[in-house]
Protein backbone atom coordinates (compact mmCIF):
# COMPACT_ATOMS: atom_id res chain seq x y z
CA UNK A 1 0.00 0.00 0.00
CA UNK A 2 2.23 2.75 -1.16
CA UNK A 3 -0.40 5.34 -1.82
CA UNK A 4 -2.02 7.05 1.06
CA UNK A 5 -4.30 9.93 1.64
CA UNK A 6 -3.86 12.45 4.38
CA UNK A 7 -6.90 12.73 6.60
CA UNK A 8 -7.38 15.80 8.73
CA UNK A 9 -10.30 15.78 11.08
CA UNK A 10 -11.03 19.10 12.72
CA UNK A 11 -13.71 19.96 15.24
CA UNK A 12 -14.28 23.34 16.87
CA UNK A 13 -12.64 22.21 20.08
CA UNK A 14 -9.62 20.39 18.68
CA UNK A 15 -7.67 18.94 15.81
CA UNK A 16 -8.77 15.36 16.27
CA UNK A 17 -6.66 13.64 13.68
CA UNK A 18 -3.96 14.41 11.14
CA UNK A 19 -2.62 11.20 9.70
CA UNK A 20 -1.92 9.18 6.59
CA UNK A 21 -4.68 6.68 5.93
CA UNK A 22 -5.56 4.23 3.18
CA UNK A 23 -9.22 4.88 2.73
CA UNK A 24 -12.03 6.99 4.14
CA UNK A 25 -15.78 6.53 4.14
CA UNK A 26 -18.03 9.42 5.12
CA UNK A 27 -21.74 10.27 5.17
CA UNK A 28 -22.25 12.86 2.42
CA UNK A 29 -25.37 14.90 1.86
CA UNK A 30 -26.15 12.83 -1.23
CA UNK A 31 -25.31 9.52 0.32
CA UNK A 32 -22.28 7.78 1.72
CA UNK A 33 -19.10 8.10 -0.27
CA UNK A 34 -15.64 6.64 -0.12
CA UNK A 35 -12.37 8.40 -0.74
CA UNK A 36 -9.25 6.65 -1.99
CA UNK A 37 -5.93 8.16 -3.03
CA UNK A 38 -6.05 10.17 -6.29
CA UNK A 39 -9.59 11.28 -5.64
CA UNK A 40 -10.91 14.24 -7.63
CA UNK A 41 -11.07 17.60 -5.83
CA UNK A 42 -14.32 17.49 -4.06
CA UNK A 43 -16.35 19.51 -1.60
CA UNK A 44 -19.43 18.27 0.13
CA UNK A 45 -21.81 18.70 2.96
CA UNK A 46 -21.77 15.95 5.57
CA UNK A 47 -24.79 14.50 7.29
CA UNK A 48 -25.08 13.14 10.78
CA UNK A 49 -23.71 9.66 10.46
CA UNK A 50 -20.90 7.23 10.74
CA UNK A 51 -17.49 7.93 9.34
CA UNK A 52 -14.71 5.41 9.14
CA UNK A 53 -11.20 5.17 7.85
CA UNK A 54 -8.74 2.40 7.25
CA UNK A 55 -5.21 2.64 8.40
CA UNK A 56 -2.77 -0.24 8.11
CA UNK A 57 -5.45 -2.88 7.79
CA UNK A 58 -7.44 -1.61 10.72
CA UNK A 59 -10.72 0.19 10.41
CA UNK A 60 -11.59 2.98 12.82
CA UNK A 61 -15.11 4.22 13.35
CA UNK A 62 -16.32 7.64 14.37
CA UNK A 63 -19.68 9.22 15.04
CA UNK A 64 -20.01 12.48 13.17
CA UNK A 65 -22.64 15.13 13.70
CA UNK A 66 -22.61 16.88 10.38
CA UNK A 67 -20.08 19.15 8.78
CA UNK A 68 -18.08 19.57 5.59
CA UNK A 69 -15.50 17.54 3.78
CA UNK A 70 -12.97 18.74 1.29
CA UNK A 71 -10.68 16.61 -0.81
CA UNK A 72 -7.82 18.44 -2.44
CA UNK A 73 -4.44 17.16 -3.59
CA UNK A 74 -4.40 13.93 -1.61
CA UNK A 75 -5.55 15.72 1.50
CA UNK A 76 -9.00 15.19 2.88
CA UNK A 77 -10.15 17.69 5.42
CA UNK A 78 -13.23 17.00 7.47
CA UNK A 79 -14.77 19.87 9.38
CA UNK A 80 -17.17 18.37 11.85
CA UNK A 81 -19.45 19.98 14.40
CA UNK A 82 -18.56 17.12 16.70
CA UNK A 83 -16.80 13.81 16.24
CA UNK A 84 -16.11 10.95 18.60
CA UNK A 85 -14.24 7.70 18.27
CA UNK A 86 -16.26 4.58 18.87
CA UNK A 87 -14.55 3.98 22.19
CA UNK A 88 -15.03 7.54 23.36
CA UNK A 89 -18.78 7.46 23.18
CA UNK A 90 -20.70 7.62 26.39
CA UNK A 91 -23.30 4.94 25.74
CA UNK A 92 -25.40 5.81 28.77
CA UNK A 93 -25.64 9.40 27.68
CA UNK A 94 -26.52 8.47 24.14
CA UNK A 95 -29.26 6.13 25.38
CA UNK A 96 -30.67 8.85 27.60
CA UNK A 97 -30.58 11.27 24.67
CA UNK A 98 -32.42 8.77 22.49
CA UNK A 99 -35.15 8.31 25.05
CA UNK A 100 -35.48 12.03 25.57
CA UNK A 101 -35.76 12.65 21.86
CA UNK A 102 -38.28 9.87 21.36
CA UNK A 103 -40.43 11.25 24.13
CA UNK A 104 -40.28 14.73 22.69
CA UNK A 105 -41.26 13.48 19.28
CA UNK A 106 -44.21 11.60 20.69
CA UNK A 107 -45.46 14.73 22.42
CA UNK A 108 -45.00 17.18 19.57
CA UNK A 109 -46.85 17.39 16.32
CA UNK A 110 -44.92 17.02 13.12
CA UNK A 111 -45.38 20.64 12.13
CA UNK A 112 -43.84 21.86 15.34
CA UNK A 113 -40.55 23.67 14.98
CA UNK A 114 -39.03 21.65 17.77
CA UNK A 115 -39.99 18.41 16.14
CA UNK A 116 -37.14 18.75 13.69
CA UNK A 117 -34.73 19.53 16.50
CA UNK A 118 -35.84 16.46 18.42
CA UNK A 119 -35.55 14.37 15.28
CA UNK A 120 -32.00 15.61 14.70
CA UNK A 121 -31.12 14.82 18.31
CA UNK A 122 -32.54 11.34 17.87
CA UNK A 123 -30.47 10.82 14.73
CA UNK A 124 -27.31 11.88 16.54
CA UNK A 125 -28.06 9.56 19.44
CA UNK A 126 -28.75 6.63 17.10
CA UNK A 127 -25.51 7.17 15.21
CA UNK A 128 -23.58 7.31 18.46
CA UNK A 129 -25.14 4.06 19.62
CA UNK A 130 -24.51 2.41 16.28
CA UNK A 131 -20.88 3.46 16.21
CA UNK A 132 -20.30 2.60 19.85
CA UNK A 133 -21.20 -0.99 18.99
CA UNK A 134 -18.25 -1.27 16.61
CA UNK A 135 -14.97 -2.44 17.92
CA UNK A 136 -12.55 -0.03 19.49
CA UNK A 137 -9.83 1.60 17.48
CA UNK A 138 -6.95 -0.27 19.07
Amino acid sequence: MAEKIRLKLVTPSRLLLDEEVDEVTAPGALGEFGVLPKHISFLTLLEVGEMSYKQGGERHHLALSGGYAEVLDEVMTVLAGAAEYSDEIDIERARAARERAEKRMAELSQEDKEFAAAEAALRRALVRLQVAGKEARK
Partner: protein
Amino acid sequence: MATLKVIRKRIGSIRNTQQITKAMKMVSAAKLRRAQEAVLQARPYAEKMAALLKNLSARVSAEAHPLLMGREEKKAHLLLLTADRGLCGGYNANLIRAAEGFLRSQGAEKEVHLTIVGRKGVDYFRRRQVEIADRYINVTNRPPEELACELAEKMIGRFRQEEADGVYILYSRFRSALSQVPTIEKLIPVATGGEEGEGEITEYLFEPGVEALLSSLLPKVVEVVIYRALLEASASEHGARMTAMDSATTNAAEMISSLTLQMNRARQASITRELLEIVSTAEALK
Protein backbone atom coordinates in the same frame (compact mmCIF):
# COMPACT_ATOMS: atom_id res chain seq x y z
CA MET B 1 0.85 57.26 66.54
CA ALA B 2 -0.87 53.95 66.02
CA THR B 3 -0.58 51.57 68.91
CA LEU B 4 1.15 48.25 68.65
CA LYS B 5 -2.07 46.32 68.85
CA VAL B 6 -3.71 48.21 66.01
CA ILE B 7 -0.74 47.74 63.74
CA ARG B 8 -0.54 44.05 64.49
CA LYS B 9 -4.20 43.67 63.64
CA ARG B 10 -3.77 45.45 60.34
CA ILE B 11 -0.84 43.27 59.40
CA GLY B 12 -2.96 40.24 60.15
CA SER B 13 -5.79 41.40 57.96
CA ILE B 14 -3.50 42.32 55.08
CA ARG B 15 -1.87 38.94 55.33
CA ASN B 16 -5.29 37.31 55.00
CA THR B 17 -6.07 39.38 51.93
CA GLN B 18 -2.72 38.50 50.49
CA GLN B 19 -3.46 34.84 50.91
CA ILE B 20 -6.73 35.24 49.04
CA THR B 21 -5.20 37.19 46.19
CA LYS B 22 -2.41 34.66 45.94
CA ALA B 23 -4.90 31.81 45.73
CA MET B 24 -6.93 33.67 43.11
CA LYS B 25 -3.83 34.27 41.09
CA MET B 26 -2.99 30.60 41.15
CA VAL B 27 -6.51 29.59 40.14
CA SER B 28 -6.47 32.11 37.31
CA ALA B 29 -3.11 30.88 36.12
CA ALA B 30 -4.43 27.34 35.89
CA LYS B 31 -7.60 28.47 34.14
CA LEU B 32 -5.61 30.66 31.82
CA ARG B 33 -3.52 27.72 30.72
CA ARG B 34 -6.63 25.76 29.88
CA ALA B 35 -8.28 28.69 28.12
CA GLN B 36 -5.16 29.37 26.10
CA GLU B 37 -5.05 25.74 25.09
CA ALA B 38 -8.66 25.96 23.94
CA VAL B 39 -7.90 29.03 21.83
CA LEU B 40 -5.06 27.21 20.11
CA GLN B 41 -7.13 24.08 19.58
CA ALA B 42 -9.94 26.04 17.98
CA ARG B 43 -7.67 27.78 15.52
CA PRO B 44 -7.38 25.08 12.81
CA TYR B 45 -11.14 24.77 12.56
CA ALA B 46 -11.67 28.49 12.20
CA GLU B 47 -8.89 28.81 9.64
CA LYS B 48 -10.17 25.93 7.56
CA MET B 49 -13.67 27.36 7.71
CA ALA B 50 -12.46 30.73 6.47
CA ALA B 51 -10.56 29.09 3.62
CA LEU B 52 -13.66 27.14 2.64
CA LEU B 53 -15.81 30.23 2.67
CA LYS B 54 -13.33 32.17 0.59
CA ASN B 55 -13.19 29.38 -1.91
CA LEU B 56 -16.95 29.09 -2.18
CA SER B 57 -17.76 32.76 -2.25
CA ALA B 58 -15.25 33.35 -5.04
CA ARG B 59 -17.56 31.35 -7.28
CA VAL B 60 -20.77 33.22 -6.64
CA SER B 61 -21.87 36.82 -6.82
CA ALA B 62 -22.32 38.82 -3.66
CA GLU B 63 -26.08 38.52 -3.97
CA ALA B 64 -25.98 34.77 -3.71
CA HIS B 65 -26.88 34.75 -0.05
CA PRO B 66 -28.52 37.29 2.23
CA LEU B 67 -25.78 36.96 4.83
CA LEU B 68 -23.20 38.13 2.31
CA MET B 69 -25.18 41.06 1.09
CA GLY B 70 -24.40 44.41 2.58
CA ARG B 71 -27.09 47.06 2.73
CA GLU B 72 -27.21 50.61 3.87
CA GLU B 73 -26.62 50.60 7.59
CA LYS B 74 -29.39 52.40 9.39
CA LYS B 75 -29.39 50.13 12.38
CA ALA B 76 -26.36 48.52 13.86
CA HIS B 77 -26.18 45.88 16.51
CA LEU B 78 -23.30 45.41 18.90
CA LEU B 79 -22.59 42.13 20.62
CA LEU B 80 -20.46 42.92 23.64
CA LEU B 81 -18.63 40.20 25.52
CA THR B 82 -17.71 41.10 29.10
CA ALA B 83 -17.01 39.05 32.21
CA ASP B 84 -19.44 38.00 34.90
CA ARG B 85 -16.97 38.68 37.65
CA GLY B 86 -14.79 41.57 38.61
CA LEU B 87 -11.37 41.65 40.26
CA CYS B 88 -9.63 41.42 36.97
CA GLY B 89 -7.99 44.81 36.64
CA GLY B 90 -9.10 46.97 33.75
CA TYR B 91 -10.55 44.10 31.74
CA ASN B 92 -14.22 45.04 31.93
CA ALA B 93 -13.55 48.76 32.07
CA ASN B 94 -11.55 48.63 28.86
CA LEU B 95 -14.27 46.73 27.06
CA ILE B 96 -16.96 49.06 28.31
CA ARG B 97 -14.94 52.08 27.27
CA ALA B 98 -14.56 50.61 23.78
CA ALA B 99 -18.31 49.97 23.66
CA GLU B 100 -19.03 53.56 24.72
CA GLY B 101 -16.71 54.76 21.99
CA PHE B 102 -18.56 52.65 19.45
CA LEU B 103 -21.93 53.95 20.63
CA ARG B 104 -20.71 57.54 20.40
CA SER B 105 -19.19 57.24 16.96
CA GLN B 106 -21.97 55.17 15.41
CA GLY B 107 -24.88 56.41 17.46
CA ALA B 108 -24.94 59.84 15.82
CA GLU B 109 -26.15 58.68 12.44
CA LYS B 110 -27.79 55.36 13.18
CA GLU B 111 -29.60 53.38 15.78
CA VAL B 112 -27.40 51.06 17.78
CA HIS B 113 -28.78 48.17 19.78
CA LEU B 114 -26.87 46.16 22.32
CA THR B 115 -26.60 42.52 23.20
CA ILE B 116 -24.43 42.03 26.23
CA VAL B 117 -22.84 38.90 27.57
CA GLY B 118 -21.51 39.05 31.11
CA ARG B 119 -22.85 40.62 34.26
CA LYS B 120 -20.34 43.47 34.42
CA GLY B 121 -21.36 44.92 31.08
CA VAL B 122 -25.04 44.45 31.77
CA ASP B 123 -24.78 46.20 35.14
CA TYR B 124 -22.88 49.13 33.71
CA PHE B 125 -25.31 49.88 30.91
CA ARG B 126 -28.36 49.25 33.05
CA ARG B 127 -27.15 51.77 35.62
CA ARG B 128 -26.81 54.32 32.84
CA GLN B 129 -30.27 53.53 31.57
CA VAL B 130 -29.03 52.39 28.18
CA GLU B 131 -31.46 50.02 26.57
CA ILE B 132 -30.16 46.48 26.30
CA ALA B 133 -31.84 44.36 23.67
CA ASP B 134 -30.63 41.05 25.01
CA ARG B 135 -28.57 40.02 27.97
CA TYR B 136 -26.75 36.90 29.04
CA ILE B 137 -25.46 36.64 32.57
CA ASN B 138 -23.89 33.76 34.45
CA VAL B 139 -22.75 32.17 31.26
CA THR B 140 -19.14 31.59 32.18
CA ASN B 141 -19.87 28.02 33.14
CA ARG B 142 -21.85 27.15 30.05
CA PRO B 143 -20.00 25.34 27.30
CA PRO B 144 -18.98 27.99 24.77
CA GLU B 145 -20.15 25.89 21.79
CA GLU B 146 -23.69 26.05 23.02
CA LEU B 147 -23.61 29.74 23.78
CA ALA B 148 -22.00 30.53 20.43
CA CYS B 149 -24.73 28.59 18.67
CA GLU B 150 -27.46 30.46 20.49
CA LEU B 151 -25.86 33.87 19.98
CA ALA B 152 -25.26 33.19 16.29
CA GLU B 153 -28.89 32.23 15.80
CA LYS B 154 -30.08 35.40 17.53
CA MET B 155 -27.75 37.65 15.57
CA ILE B 156 -28.62 36.11 12.23
CA GLY B 157 -32.29 36.39 13.11
CA ARG B 158 -31.90 40.10 13.82
CA PHE B 159 -30.15 40.64 10.54
CA ARG B 160 -32.71 38.68 8.57
CA GLN B 161 -35.64 40.46 10.12
CA GLU B 162 -33.97 43.76 9.38
CA GLU B 163 -33.75 44.72 13.01
CA ALA B 164 -30.10 45.32 12.26
CA ASP B 165 -28.30 46.08 9.03
CA GLY B 166 -24.91 45.27 10.42
CA VAL B 167 -23.81 43.23 13.41
CA TYR B 168 -20.55 43.86 15.20
CA ILE B 169 -18.85 41.92 17.92
CA LEU B 170 -16.71 43.53 20.60
CA TYR B 171 -14.49 41.25 22.62
CA SER B 172 -11.10 41.18 24.20
CA ARG B 173 -8.44 39.67 22.00
CA PHE B 174 -5.89 37.67 23.92
CA ARG B 175 -2.34 38.78 23.17
CA SER B 176 -0.61 37.61 26.32
CA ALA B 177 -1.31 37.37 30.01
CA LEU B 178 -0.25 40.99 30.28
CA SER B 179 -1.99 42.39 27.26
CA GLN B 180 -5.60 42.04 26.19
CA VAL B 181 -6.92 44.28 23.47
CA PRO B 182 -10.60 45.17 23.05
CA THR B 183 -11.36 44.39 19.42
CA ILE B 184 -14.35 45.14 17.23
CA GLU B 185 -15.09 42.90 14.29
CA LYS B 186 -17.88 42.92 11.78
CA LEU B 187 -19.94 39.80 12.15
CA ILE B 188 -22.70 40.21 9.58
CA PRO B 189 -22.71 40.67 6.63
CA VAL B 190 -20.01 38.05 6.54
CA ALA B 191 -16.71 39.22 5.15
CA THR B 192 -15.40 36.66 2.70
CA GLY B 193 -11.85 37.92 2.71
CA GLY B 194 -11.53 36.92 -0.91
CA GLU B 195 -11.53 40.20 -2.81
CA GLU B 196 -7.93 40.20 -4.00
CA GLY B 197 -6.97 36.62 -3.44
CA GLU B 198 -7.87 35.43 -6.94
CA GLY B 199 -5.70 33.28 -9.10
CA GLU B 200 -5.73 29.97 -7.35
CA ILE B 201 -9.26 28.75 -7.79
CA THR B 202 -9.13 25.00 -7.83
CA GLU B 203 -11.66 22.99 -9.74
CA TYR B 204 -13.97 21.19 -7.41
CA LEU B 205 -16.77 18.77 -7.58
CA PHE B 206 -19.52 20.20 -5.41
CA GLU B 207 -22.11 18.20 -3.64
CA PRO B 208 -24.94 19.18 -3.37
CA GLY B 209 -24.15 22.54 -5.03
CA VAL B 210 -22.33 25.79 -4.40
CA GLU B 211 -25.42 27.65 -3.21
CA ALA B 212 -26.58 24.90 -0.90
CA LEU B 213 -23.12 24.55 0.58
CA LEU B 214 -22.81 28.26 1.05
CA SER B 215 -26.13 28.66 2.77
CA SER B 216 -25.24 25.92 5.20
CA LEU B 217 -21.74 27.26 5.73
CA LEU B 218 -22.50 30.93 6.36
CA PRO B 219 -24.41 30.55 9.64
CA LYS B 220 -21.66 28.19 10.78
CA VAL B 221 -19.05 30.82 9.99
CA VAL B 222 -20.87 33.34 12.17
CA GLU B 223 -21.02 30.76 14.91
CA VAL B 224 -17.32 30.01 14.67
CA VAL B 225 -16.41 33.69 14.85
CA ILE B 226 -18.48 34.04 18.01
CA TYR B 227 -17.08 30.82 19.42
CA ARG B 228 -13.54 31.98 18.87
CA ALA B 229 -14.33 35.37 20.39
CA LEU B 230 -15.78 33.66 23.48
CA LEU B 231 -12.63 31.61 23.91
CA GLU B 232 -10.37 34.61 23.42
CA ALA B 233 -12.46 36.59 25.87
CA SER B 234 -12.23 33.90 28.50
CA ALA B 235 -8.46 33.60 28.08
CA SER B 236 -8.20 37.39 28.33
CA GLU B 237 -10.30 37.48 31.45
CA HIS B 238 -8.16 34.93 33.23
CA GLY B 239 -5.00 36.62 32.04
CA ALA B 240 -6.19 39.99 33.28
CA ARG B 241 -7.24 38.52 36.61
CA MET B 242 -3.95 36.77 37.05
CA THR B 243 -2.02 39.97 36.44
CA ALA B 244 -4.28 41.98 38.72
CA MET B 245 -4.02 39.43 41.51
CA ASP B 246 -0.28 39.21 41.08
CA SER B 247 0.15 42.94 41.60
CA ALA B 248 -2.31 42.85 44.49
CA THR B 249 -0.18 40.19 46.16
CA THR B 250 2.95 42.27 45.62
CA ASN B 251 1.25 45.35 46.99
CA ALA B 252 0.15 43.45 50.05
CA ALA B 253 3.71 42.26 50.65
CA GLU B 254 4.96 45.83 50.40
CA MET B 255 2.33 47.03 52.82
CA ILE B 256 3.16 44.28 55.29
CA SER B 257 6.84 45.16 55.27
CA SER B 258 6.19 48.86 55.79
CA LEU B 259 3.74 48.10 58.60
CA THR B 260 6.22 45.71 60.19
CA LEU B 261 8.79 48.49 60.21
CA GLN B 262 6.28 50.81 61.82
CA MET B 263 5.42 48.19 64.39
CA ASN B 264 9.04 47.60 65.31
CA ARG B 265 9.56 51.30 65.69
CA ALA B 266 6.56 51.58 67.97
CA ARG B 267 7.79 48.66 70.04
CA GLN B 268 11.26 50.16 70.32
CA ALA B 269 9.77 53.47 71.39
CA SER B 270 7.68 51.90 74.10
CA ILE B 271 10.69 49.95 75.45
CA THR B 272 12.79 53.10 75.52
CA ARG B 273 10.03 54.95 77.30
CA GLU B 274 9.70 52.23 79.92
CA LEU B 275 13.44 52.18 80.50
CA LEU B 276 13.49 55.93 80.92
CA GLU B 277 10.68 55.71 83.42
CA ILE B 278 12.46 53.05 85.45
CA VAL B 279 15.76 54.90 85.41
CA SER B 280 14.20 58.21 86.38
CA THR B 281 12.21 56.58 89.19
CA ALA B 282 15.35 54.96 90.54
CA GLU B 283 17.11 58.31 90.29
CA ALA B 284 14.31 60.02 92.21
CA LEU B 285 14.41 57.44 95.01
CA LYS B 286 18.08 58.04 95.80
